[in-house]
């Protein structure tokens, strides 16, 4: 394993130190327990948006902390949900008196740890709500599974609800908007290569030279099926079709298209794929109103990509367009 690290057990802490050094104007970091929070927290009178999850998906979530997006992020060990202490510390730190919305990706570990923290916070009389995002259509959503995973849609959700919170939405309004976004967003991913978790030291799974894994999650867990590698045109279709069929999206819909790199895919390939996705959507009569292209919800160095499609309305677009100033997303500020 060749990684730019000193010791697998200190990767997250050391990386947070670098994040803090790089973006001192935007965020601050505390350790034990680890929390990334807005430099100007708490924002008094504003609903606080808190998220988090395992590390290794950078820039999510620490890179989304700042004006117009998250008030705090709780980074767990690599690919491991954070602990309730972290979430509690985050809540305490950023609570500005207008309530706290926890944005949780649907993984058993994330849900349980955030739930525990929310119980503690509620016991202290804080108004804490939780929304769980589960946008990954690769996973069967049934009573007999852990349900869909939260993947790329999380970035869009955090931007939109973060914008609304900054714009003065109440906790009720933030929660309602978040639920609408969750109901309107779907994703699907593919891995060309596996990633290597530092404390494991070997790739999470093994793909042959001509094999790709469809329906990959963001934790190095294997996907739904292995297929031979295919041209980009076909690959983008393979990802897009289950997304469109699921919601479903149909002609006349207005969408935000998010073409996400799993981390190790060159931008030249990602834009190529994005161009194909745009064309396929246009062919179906779907209007792409906004787009995001880049490595935002990653799996360490994994090569691969995901597509996320969000059916937007004017309210969502308004908060998507609203100023944001974070390490990873920045406009209008």
């Amino acid at each position, binding site marked *: 394993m060749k990684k730019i690290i000193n010791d697998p057990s200190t990767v997250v802490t050391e990386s947070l130190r670098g994040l803090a050094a790089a973006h001192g104007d935007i965020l601050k970091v505390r350790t034990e327990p680890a929390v990334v929070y807005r430099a100007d927290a708490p924002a008094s009178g504003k609903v606080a948006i808190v998220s988090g999850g395992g590390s290794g998906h950078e820039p999510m979530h620490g890179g989304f902390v700042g004006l117009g997006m998250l008030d705090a992020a709780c980074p767990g060990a690599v690919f491991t*949900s954070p602990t309730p202490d972290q979430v509690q510390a985050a809540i305490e730190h950023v609570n500005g008196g207008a309530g706290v919305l926890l944005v949780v990706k649907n993984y*058993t570990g994330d849900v349980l740890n955030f739930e525990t923290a929310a119980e503690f916070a509620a016991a202290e009389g804080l108004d804490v709500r939780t929304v769980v995002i589960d946008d990954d259509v690769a996973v069967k959503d049934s009573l007999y599974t852990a349900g869909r995973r939260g993947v790329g849609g999380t970035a869009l959700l955090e931007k939109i609800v973060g914008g609304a919170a900054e714009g003065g939405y109440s906790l009720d309004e933030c929660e309602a908007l978040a639920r609408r976004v969750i109901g309107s967003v779907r994703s699907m991913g593919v891995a060309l290569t596996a990633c290597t978790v530092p404390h494991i030291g070997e790739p999470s799974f093994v793909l042959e030279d001509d094999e790709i894994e469809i329906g990959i999650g963001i934790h190095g867990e294997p996907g739904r099926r292995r297929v031979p590698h295919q041209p980009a045109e076909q690959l983008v279709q393979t990802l897009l079709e289950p997304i469109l069929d699921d919601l479903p999206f149909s002609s006349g819909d207005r969408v935000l298209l998010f073409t996400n790199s799993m981390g190790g895919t060159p931008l030249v390939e990602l834009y190529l794929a994005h161009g194909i996705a745009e064309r396929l959507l246009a062919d179906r009569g779907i209007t792409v109103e906004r787009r995001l292209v880049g490595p935002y919800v990653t799996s360490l160095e994994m090569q691969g990509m995901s597509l996320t499609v969000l059916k937007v309305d004017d309210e969502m677009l308004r908060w998507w367009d609203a100023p944001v100033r974070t390490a990873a997303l920045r406009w209008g500020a």
Partner: protein
Amino acid sequence: MSCDAAGVVAALRSAAEVVEAHRDELVTLDREIGDGDHGENLKRGFTAVLSKLDNAGDTPGAVLKVVASTLISTVGGAAGPLYGTAFLRAAAKLGTEPELTASSVVDALAAALEGVVARGKAEVGDKTMVDALTPAVAAARDAAGSSVAEVLRAAADAAGKGAEDTVPLVARKGRASYLGERSAGHMDPGARSTALLLRAFADAAS
């Protein structure tokens, strides 16, 4: 082993050793059907537990409460809250009782199982730690008339068998459920770690 707080502390020390020794095995199991962190998560948790054991408390319940909160705040993932809840419920059940008895151990194990199920909503057959803990509680209950050591041995044996029995199952809870049919043919890491912990406790009690 004594059945007082010191005995429980000693049992936890050997549990920590077992976790350390089986870290790679648990990582490998979790890599196959999960995300590969289970062994590392538990190792991190039990290393933290070790550092808290010296002044953990005067009763078995007090010690287990420290274990619970330490695991909750250091393990993360699904296993953190689940094992944390298990130890917390067991601690609550033991209350301030100064010494474990066979029947209090049975009750504590049952409370732990109830806690895990309450948090994780898994049923037997979902391919989770519940598949190890459920038969463990039943076996412990059958052995309730004997000693603490006998109860724990029965529980550990049953948990080991329960863990083995997860191999053919298709996961319906936790990260392995994303794999669908492909999760069959692998032992559930959480069931395995449950069996390992109970074995460590049983060995310490013998």
